[in-house]
């Protein structure tokens, strides 16, 4: 009898553990927190990055951030209804160029991160079981007013990935929609690809100098 109770208790405990682990793995904010922790730890540990070494920052973004970002989805939503008009080659080129533009922008913003910056998480916006969520955070720097930084995440094929960001009321990918559609209207999809590639090239040469 006593043994059975212990056994049952153990089973229940094991059940809780398993659920806890599954939930932790499944929660959309877990991945953001992990990625942010890793990046901030890396910045704190590296004086080169703190002094603004762009090549090192780019490397950090490529290894620690990019895997958690759904660039395909981001490109699709920025290109909008013109997406279906693009050939597979054009789509691939758009994804490649937009990815490099976004990572570069993010690296630029990251280079102004200071070790004393505090990141605070606000309540997660998510209905359990739904494939979309908003992980909300506040960046508290030395400035008096904290900055809102929200990550829009989407679950595709079992993993959460970032599909947009809101920086102080400004949706990053959303903002490209207008520019992209202008460019496509004026000079077509190839024109947009060329423009993106040219911008990336000039950014690259700037980062090196």
């Amino acid at each position, binding site marked *: 009898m006593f043994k059975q109770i212990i056994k049952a208790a153990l089973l229940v405990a094991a059940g809780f553990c398993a659920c806890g682990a599954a939930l932790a793995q499944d929660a959309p904010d877990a991945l953001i927190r992990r990625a942010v922790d890793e990046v901030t730890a890396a910045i704190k540990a590296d004086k080169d990055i703190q002094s603004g070494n762009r090549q090192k920052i780019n490397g950090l973004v490529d290894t620690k951030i990019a895997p958690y970002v759904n660039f395909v989805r981001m490109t699709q939503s920025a290109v909008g209804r013109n997406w279906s008009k693009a050939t597979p080659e054009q789509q691939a080129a758009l994804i490649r160029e937009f990815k490099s533009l976004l990572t570069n922008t993010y690296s630029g913003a990251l280079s102004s991160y200071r070790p004393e910056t505090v990141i605070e998480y606000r309540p997660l916006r998510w209905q359990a079981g739904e494939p979309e969520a908003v992980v909300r955070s506040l960046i508290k720097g030395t400035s008096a007013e904290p900055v809102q930084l929200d990550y829009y995440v989407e679950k595709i094929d079992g993993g959460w990935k970032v599909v947009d960001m809101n*920086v102080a*009321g400004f949706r990053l990918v959303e903002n490209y929609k207008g520019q992209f559609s202008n460019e496509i209207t004026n000079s077509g999809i190839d024109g947009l690809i060329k423009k993106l590639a040219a911008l990336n090239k000039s950014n690259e040469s700037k980062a090196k100098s």
Partner: protein
Amino acid sequence: MKAWSNLRHLVVALLFAAVAGGCASTNPAVDPFEGVNRAVFSFNDGLDKALVKPVATAYKAVVPEPARQCVGNVFANVNDIFVSINSLLQGKVGDAVSDACRVLVNTTVGIAGCFDVASKMGLEKHRRDFGQTLGKWGFTPGPYLVLPVLGPSNFRDGIGTGITSYLDPVWKISHVRTRNVLVTTRAVNNRADLLTAGDVLEEAALDKYSFVRDAYLQRRQNMVVEDDGKEAGKRADGSPLPLAVKGAVAPPPPVPESLWFDQANQRETLRTGLSPRDPRSAAAPASAKTSL
């Protein structure tokens, strides 16, 4: 004043933004004066490149960060007077009191506003202005405007800026030299804060004019519909809210009446406590009062 706030500054006020070559198609509904606006934008950019940015860069190089932070705090403290007034006008009495306390604490304990003691005491700084208040009262933004020297605005925010500068104590100083020095210092200090943001914009934008315009309009719209805790600028179905001016930043099709009370919207109602009927109700004065 540094760090991640630069990220915000990318958006906040690219008063000193630069123009891009080439021309994009117009968005007549939001930006009927695009031709003139682009010209002013280009003028502002020229002024920035030739004068303001070099001065700000030199200022940043010469004046140590703590001193710049002090200067920024002093002017932010003056601005908190207007924040408090606008909190009150928006019906947020609690915030208005807290903002007034910020001014009181920072002016005294914070030595004329040099140190932001109030924030350390937990009195958070808010971001409120007359343009936003007008928006909360139901005024639509009107056409997008690029003001000479001042930069991105719209009809409504232009009126807001007018009210602010009319009441601005710095402009009221009768000793002309002191006033001019203070106004210039404030502008240069603000610009120095935006130096990194300018670089980011330079690298990120395909067409700086429309990048800055869309960012400005989107941000101002969010500042009007924000209702602490509620996610700004989103409909119940997750699509972004249209701006009050039709056609701005690609508004999605309206939610059909048949979907007003579907399950998804019901859940959203519970979550945000807002009527799913009209997501813009957050911007109406009535609901601003209920948030008291």
